[in-house]
């Protein structure tokens, strides 16, 4: 980035130099404002030039502060006889932040030192957020993975994990290398095909490595007849419930949400202002209140708990999410498309159905998947509407039904190691589901965006 900008800078200077030269030699009378005339450097406006903020001595100061912070915190903990790692971390961070400020202050000015201090703090908050996300995901995986796979000796664990990691690494590297060639414009049919083939092969390979050791009982049985201390039992009933409830929620919410988004952005009718207001209000609705509404209106009026009412509660949560994302997507569609459809004599509905929606398809799918990802983990609303159950209930329209969050919630309240281990395993399944949905939504959305802008 730096190199490119330097190059454009020189061109810019050269041009102005040229102009001056030409003026002098050929036509001294030409009134040509030297400063205004040359074109500004044609650099990418999105990538501003940043001189390197840190020199070698700055880096040295950072390293020294970090080392002295660790030493100080260690000494302090030793002297005061503190053992909690977090106490150590707090003191180390305090010392580190102060240290960076003081050293910079001593060597340079107040302004620079302040800048250094803020830079440190902002990097720390970035590191904190990334660290927390990573810590949580790893913690959940470690706690829960044991119940999902058969008991294996450590060596086999290492071998299988190593194999999967290797395959993922191969797929990623192939994709990345060939993607770079593609981007550079030297791609061939092979470079386009190869990443897909390798990716598919690696996925199949990873499946072959993982599937044989998966604890199938956990996915194919419920916990109706499993005592708290027994082995076995699983999440089959919860998976059925999640599937049915989410399907119902999606069928209800996605059409409503997309039509509302169309109303807000394409039609802009009289209700647009109050509806946007209400959608904003809905998106901040506490999830438990969504459950409470359905409970009050439907469940508590003699109709009883059911999976379908949970679906409705989840739909109330999904509608604002999908509406807002869908509206953002509609906003990205070029007005020229709409106007050309109208100019060709199409009525508005045809312009929306045949031009706007197909263009927005990928984005709308992304919006829906993000809504599902959000709804699938909600516990409070389904607690008030589906209530939860230990038996497999295939009928979502009557009797309590379980789902993944309710399964976890129910087991967490039992003071029993085996049950809590089951809850952790179910949490891993839930987390993986959310991750898969989220990544799918991203990939589809990114492809759609590339298509929309690429044409």
């Amino acid at each position: 980035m730096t190199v490119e900008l330097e190059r454009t800078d020189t061109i810019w200077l050269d041009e102005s130099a040229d102009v001056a030269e030409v003026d002098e030699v050929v036509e001294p009378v030409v009134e040509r404002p030297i400063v205004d005339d040359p074109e500004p450097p044609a650099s990418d406006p999105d990538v501003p030039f940043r001189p390197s903020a840190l020199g070698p001595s700055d880096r040295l100061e950072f390293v020294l502060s970090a080392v002295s912070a660790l030493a100080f915190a260690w000494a302090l903990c030793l002297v005061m006889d503190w053992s909690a790692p977090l106490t150590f971390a707090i003191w180390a961070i305090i010392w580190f932040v102060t240290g960076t400020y003081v050293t910079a202050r001593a060597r340079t000015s107040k302004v620079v030192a302040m800048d250094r201090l803020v830079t440190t703090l902002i990097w720390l908050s970035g590191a904190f957020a990334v660290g927390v996300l990573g810590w949580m995901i790893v913690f959940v995986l470690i706690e829960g993975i044991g119940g999902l796979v058969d008991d294996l000796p450590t060596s086999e664990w290492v071998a299988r994990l190593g194999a999967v990691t290797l395959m993922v690494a191969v797929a990623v590297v192939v994709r990345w290398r060939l993607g770079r060639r593609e981007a550079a414009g030297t791609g061939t049919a092979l470079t386009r095909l190869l990443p897909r083939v390798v990716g598919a092969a690696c996925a199949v390979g990873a499946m072959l490595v993982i599937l044989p050791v998966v604890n199938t009982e956990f996915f194919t049985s419920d916990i109706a007849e499993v005592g708290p201390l027994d082995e076995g039992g699983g999440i089959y009933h919860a998976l059925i419930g999640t599937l049915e409830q989410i399907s119902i929620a999606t069928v209800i919410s996605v059409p409503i949400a997309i039509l509302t988004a169309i109303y807000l952005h394409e039609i802009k009718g009289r209700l647009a202002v109050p509806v946007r207001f209400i959608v904003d209000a809905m998106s901040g609705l506490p999830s438990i209140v969504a459950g409470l509404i359905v409970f009050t209106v439907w469940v508590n009026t003699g109709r009883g708990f059911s999976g379908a009412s949970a679906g409705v509660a989840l739909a109330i949560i999904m509608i604002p999410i999908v509406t807002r994302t869908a509206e953002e997507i509609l906003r990205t569609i070029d007005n020229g498309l709409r106007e050309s459809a109208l100019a060709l004599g199409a009525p508005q509905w045809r312009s929306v159905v045949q031009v706007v929606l197909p263009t927005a398809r990928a984005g709308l799918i992304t919006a829906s998947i993000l809504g599902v990802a959000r709804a699938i983990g909600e516990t409070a609303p389904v607690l008030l509407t589906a209530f939860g159950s230990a038996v497999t209930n295939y009928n979502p329209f009557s009797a309590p039904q379980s789902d993944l969050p309710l399964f976890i919630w129910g087991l967490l309240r039992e003071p029993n190691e085996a049950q809590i281990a089951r809850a952790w395993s179910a949490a891993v399944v839930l987390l993986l589901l959310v991750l898969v949905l989220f990544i799918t939504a991203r990939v589809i959305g990114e492809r759609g965006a590339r298509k929309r802008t690429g044409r």
Partner: protein
Amino acid sequence: MPDAPAPDGAVLEDVPRPIVQSRTFGDRVFRGISAGAAATCLLIMFTTGVFLTWKAFPAISATGPIDFLTGDTWQPDDEAFGVGGLLVNTIMIAITALVIGVPVALGLALFINEYSPAKMRPLLTGGVDLLAAIPSLIFGMWGLFALSEPLSGVAEWLASHLNAIPIFRLTEPDVALTRSTFIAGFVVAIMITPVITSVSRDVMAQVPRVQCEGALGLGGSRWGMIRDVVLPFGKSGIVGSILLGFGRALGETIAVVLVIDLVFQPNLNILEQGSGSISALIATKFGEAQGLEINGLIAAGLALFIMTLIVNLIARAIVNRSKLAG
């Protein structure tokens, strides 16, 4: 713009010719259907308000509205429902969450916008969105099993070093420091961070880059640029995003239920065991509630609904206005 036609035809304003739209039958059906969908949203919120008020009425009238909002007893047998203490505790959890979460969230937003390498930016925004998508149940479990221990250590540290501040004081020397407002606030802080980060990042990304470059070109440090250009520009958007986070924190249920012990008395010593929130009350008592207690829970839900509605609408109004300005 003068409406009267100019005399002697000197200057005619560019007035667009009014377009008379004739809508086909299909258009009218299409508009009707979408308007119906949009009206469904209105209907849902309207039903919520009406039904919750209607069903909450018996419990509120049994207790009396003043006692309901200020009391701190929950005795279904005596028909006494007071959520005053819970309201205080709810707000204490939300404020704790803001105090911890806002610096991190704003730091993260600035980090993504101004400090991180451009190539990492999509990855980081994706990470923030992912953090928002992770179920609150999983946050709660993590808070309960992974955070309780270390955070009670932090609580001990705060209680012994910063007890000049009243809220960090302990009523008794050896009171339990787990399952407190502090730990609930910490977990909720992590949950509201992505909300605050993504909204404030959006707003701060709209600051005119020319002004930023100008500030840097005048010799300002990066912090100087942020302080004098980015933050003033994004001020109202940041305030709005914080309020949005506050609204989210008020309504958070499952993560709070898992990490606290529900008490009805207001507990201002945030490090001590015992806290509560309205949503935690509903989730905890819901299972065995019968008769009037159900109405009591609905009344509590109504209080939560109104509180979050007000906070959210103010927040949205502020954010939308700042986005329009940008």
